[in-house]
């Protein structure tokens, strides 16, 4: 008499219970992030909604009267930073990506080192970039604590992100398009400029906007290049400046309760800008991305 084999399709009872517990744990893991995100937004809106009024957009900061304080120089500073950043980071980032994808020989040690270097730079703490700015731009070059220094430092900070996104976009253009153009007698640059780049532009734009959104939310490096000042005038390229996240930090650091509400109002504006940028990037990707 041999043991009766267990029928197929049946498992020990404990298995099912364990499986369910595991599944619930996984659901909790996913949920925690969203619960915090939701709570955070509700909390910020509750605290800040009363302070998002026209004054907030037309007045400069007022360190004595939070009721009349606004964030005009900070909001303008953030917009100026965005424009400068776009002008600096997109050409350099896309140029690097084209070099690595279309020209560089992967077998060469210096090209491999270049890739490793970019991967490491992407994970260097942002405050270290602030130190770089403090040492070279603010003190070394004697630029002072100016808008341009802030823009340059943020450029270096998000350059790796733009490079990685652009490389992915360029890589997704199929080789058959390049071969076809070569067969018609195009030179390498003609192939890149007239075939590869136009096809890669949606991906590059999406990646650049996301990188820009990240840069706009950065605070730590700007603290070191001197954005934490009391500014009432609108920013200029070589003048002192502040930016929205720095202004928010300044308000949080104040002991009075009312400035916290002002900070919450600033966060609402900042998040609105960032969410708009993110939504635009996603729309762009869905609208123009081609599957080859």
């Amino acid at each position, binding site marked *: 008499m041999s043991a009766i084999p267990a029928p197929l399709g049946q*498992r020990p009872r404990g298995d099912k219970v364990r499986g369910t517990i*595991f*599944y619930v*744990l*996984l659901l*909790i*893991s*996913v949920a*925690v*992030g*969203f619960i*915090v*995100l939701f709570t*955070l937004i509700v*909390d*910020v809106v509750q*605290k800040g909604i009363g302070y998002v009024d026209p004054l907030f957009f037309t007045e400069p900061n007022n360190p004595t009267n939070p009721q009349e304080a606004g964030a005009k120089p900070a909001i303008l500073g953030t917009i100026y930073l965005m424009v400068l950043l776009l002008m600096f980071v997109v050409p*350099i980032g*896309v*140029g*690097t990506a*084209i*070099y*690595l994808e279309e*020209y560089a020989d992967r077998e060469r040690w210096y090209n491999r080192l270049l890739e490793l*270097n970019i*991967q*490491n*730079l992407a*994970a*260097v*703490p*942002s*405050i*270290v*970039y*602030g*130190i*770089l700015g403090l*040492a*070279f731009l603010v*003190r070394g070059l004697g630029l002072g604590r100016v808008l341009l220094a802030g823009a340059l430092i943020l450029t*270096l900070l998000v*350059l*790796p992100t733009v490079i990685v996104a652009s490389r992915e976009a360029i890589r997704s253009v199929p080789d058959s398009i390049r071969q076809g153009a070569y067969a018609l007698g195009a*030179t390498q*640059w003609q192939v890149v400029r007239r075939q590869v780049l136009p096809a890669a532009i949606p991906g590059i734009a999406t990646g650049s906007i996301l990188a820009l959104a990240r840069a*706009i*939310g950065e*605070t*730590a490096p700007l603290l*070191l290049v001197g954005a934490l000042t009391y500014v009432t005038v609108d920013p200029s390229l070589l003048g002192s400046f502040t930016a929205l*996240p720095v202004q928010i930090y300044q308000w*949080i650091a104040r002991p009075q309760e009312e400035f916290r509400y002002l900070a919450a109002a600033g*966060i609402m504006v*900042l*998040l609105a800008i*960032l*969410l708009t940028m*993110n939504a635009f990037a996603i729309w762009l990707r869905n609208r123009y991305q081609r599957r080859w």
Partner: protein
Amino acid sequence: MAAQDTTAGAQPIRLRAKGRRWGEDVVKGLLALCALVSVATTIGIIIALLEPSIEFFREVSIVDFFSGERWAPLFEPASFGVRPLLAGTFAVTFWACVVALPLGLGAAVYLSEYARPRVRNTLKPALEVLAGIPTVVFGFFALTFFTPLLQDFGIGVGIFNVLSAGLVMGVMLIPTVASISEDAMAAVPRELRDGAFGLGASKLQVATRIVIPAAVSGIVASYVLAISRAVGETMIVLIAAGGIAQLTADPREPAQTMTAFIGATGLGDVPTGSLEYKTIFAVGLSLFVITFFMNIISIRLVRKYREIYE
């Protein structure tokens, strides 16, 4: 012989370009120049950190720096023991890991093994939104919402404390862990799962005994990167953990991290060349070296799983 004669008079068509196209070389040079910007950045960071640090260590001995237990560069008599800053950094990182490592892995397993494609395709970008929230906002949340919440639950935390900063930072890092781990799990070949299912394994067994072990290098890479981010994160600790550099294991107390010290000191008008100014760079160098090694480990591990399965 006759066949050769017919072609003798005609010129063979040359497929090579007639002249060298200099424009092509100029373009290539310009693109390489763009690529050099990132190399210059690294060299710049190293020089910016090393030079003042060397001067700093001429005035303060390295032994005192790493063994001293009191960090008080702004007081008389000044003391430059970096251990309180390291301890603060470690404590905040620890509490961030308590949240981010298990929950990030859980989220990755859910997305990769359990979620239907449609659910996955909505949840993944939504998680990215969490990753895109500026750190100053998380700092605000930790200080004005989470710390009071902990107090309401009877955990006697101070206004500034390690626990709140660390836990909120952990939530911020969940997408980092989840995204890289999920990539690694997606690279595990389907045959491995099907084989296990064929032998009668349950979904739980496939996830924990097949997929997680097969994706382990990617998971570890995501962990190392998350730890590196936690060590380098500035704003949450600057806002929510307070500014007191002290050696304590009690997470309800305030602490100062390396990054928070750099931030707090660097935003003032520190005179260039003073010892105080140089401490920023000495601490910055320590921070850079620590994160550099973790980044390299993480990059290598990611390459490893890509090599195995792709």
